[in-house]
């Protein structure tokens, strides 16, 4: 039996909207009654078009946004009640955010080691900087790093506390294919060694095909399809193939007007 590391049940999040509905309510449903789970060691790709509800889902999983209804259980604990305890073993990375701009790479990482109560912080930072080929940049200010170097430093930050669950929200957005390829390989290697679970969102279908064993496709806040990249390809494109084609699946599902799962 596989251990469920994360269980999301009937998660719903609505935001106030200036556009009134027919009932007169000015509300927009970003996440609409979604349920899914992530097993230990599993990498789940969370796909969907812009505004589908991916980032809102991730923010709910981080406890940064309070859902209107539904529950999030991580490591068997209720996120609303045990957030601090849970977050010690969860981490997050997005290319949209930076490490503190004016600190050196080492200083910035040391700050996050304290926020996550990481033991042997200096050794852990050196180990990860070495893995991500950033050792030479440890004393360079974060603002002086190139885009790719900054993204790698963000990934280092997200691994400092040896997370059991890692939430990656478009971690390699706008990076060149060479850096993405290196990053993916490294991430898979670390994941294999540590057995951590990952939720990975991206608009680059190749990335998802490389990392995810399971894909959840959401649109308008609802789960539209779920399965392995190959299963989804066969199911949605209605063809027999041995190669996944998530790009075509993405287009097909985004344009589909059928009811969600």
């Amino acid at each position, binding site marked *: 039996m596989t251990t469920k590391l994360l269980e999301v049940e009937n998660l719903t*999040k609505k*935001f*106030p909207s200036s556009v009134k509905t027919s009932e007169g309510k000015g509300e927009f449903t*970003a996440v609409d009654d979604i349920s899914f789970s992530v097993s230990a060691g599993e990498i789940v790709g969370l796909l969907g078009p812009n505004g589908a509800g991916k*980032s*809102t889902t991730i*923010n709910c999983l*981080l406890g*940064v*946004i*309070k859902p209107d209804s539904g529950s999030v259980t991580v490591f068997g604990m209720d996120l609303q009640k045990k*957030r*601090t*305890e849970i*977050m*010690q073993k969860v*981490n*997050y990375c*997005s290319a*949209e*955010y*930076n*490490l*503190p*701009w*004016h600190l050196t790479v080492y200083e910035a990482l040391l700050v*996050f080691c304290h*926020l*996550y*109560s990481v033991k042997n912080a200096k050794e852990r930072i050196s180990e990860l900087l070495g893995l991500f080929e950033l050792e030479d940049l440890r004393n360079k200010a974060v603002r002086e790093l190139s885009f790719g170097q900054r993204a790698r430093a963000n990934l280092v*930050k997200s691994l400092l506390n040896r997370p059991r669950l890692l*939430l990656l929200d478009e971690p390699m957005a706008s990076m060149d294919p060479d850096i993405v390829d290196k990053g993916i390989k490294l991430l898979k290697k670390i994941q294999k060694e540590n057995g951590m679970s990952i939720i990975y969102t991206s608009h680059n279908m190749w990335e998802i095909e490389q990392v995810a064993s399971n894909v959840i496709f959401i649109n308008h806040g609802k789960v539209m399809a779920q399965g392995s990249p190959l299963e989804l390809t066969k199911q949605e494109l209605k063809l027999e193939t041995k190669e996944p084609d998530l790009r075509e699946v993405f287009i097909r599902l985004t344009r589909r007007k059928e009811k969600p799962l």
Partner: protein
Amino acid sequence: MWGIALRHIFLTMHQLERFADLFIFPIVGLLLWGFLSQSVAFASSNLAVFFIGGLILWTMFERVGTGIGIDFMWDIWERNLMNVLASPITLVEHIGGLVWVSIIKVIISIAAMWLIAALFYGFNLGSLGSSLVFLWANIVIFAVSLGIFNVALIIRYGHILGPLTWIIPFAIQPFTAAFYPVSIFPPYVQKIVYFLPLVHVFEGMRYTLSTGKLDLVRLETAFVLNIFYFVLAIAFFSYMFSIVRKRGTVAKL
């Protein structure tokens, strides 16, 4: 030329700090120096001592009060806030950390000002005796309350209200009686400004510098007002934070 002018008219309409440049800074400047000029007309022999003492205590307030808001905004400017919010620490612990940093910074600044005032102006801050501890505590509590109030506004309305962090202390400065006695104000203004703990602090400072005694009544009044404002700031912050978690806007800062 009109295009350039139009751009800046729009900016003035959208940016609080530009609006403050137009109205708040000139008016507040006039009020401060106006009251100061009046007080000089009735100057006592202690005027210079009052000025320097007032300046040092005012700096304590301004540094702590603005420091909390500015340090919080650095996380927004550097696009690092989400990384911090996603960590195990709570926003309350985050603000608590900023308060500690501001207090430590102000202790260092005050030590430097104490030395400079003694070397250049022969003013010894230690002449305030035990009163200094009570004055300092009251100033820090009010500054922390203001800092928490500012952060609450920033998390709710975004960094568009960030400039309030330095506009508010500047705007209330003429009414705190930092550099002149409360008696300079018209009677109806006096009734209002007594609701500011800082007024009691500065009056207490002048009393101690003149008599060498502790003005317990004023310090106690300042303390009671401070507790009220501190509780109010915490309640306001909790309310604003619950709104932003519900609306999800905190992730967009």
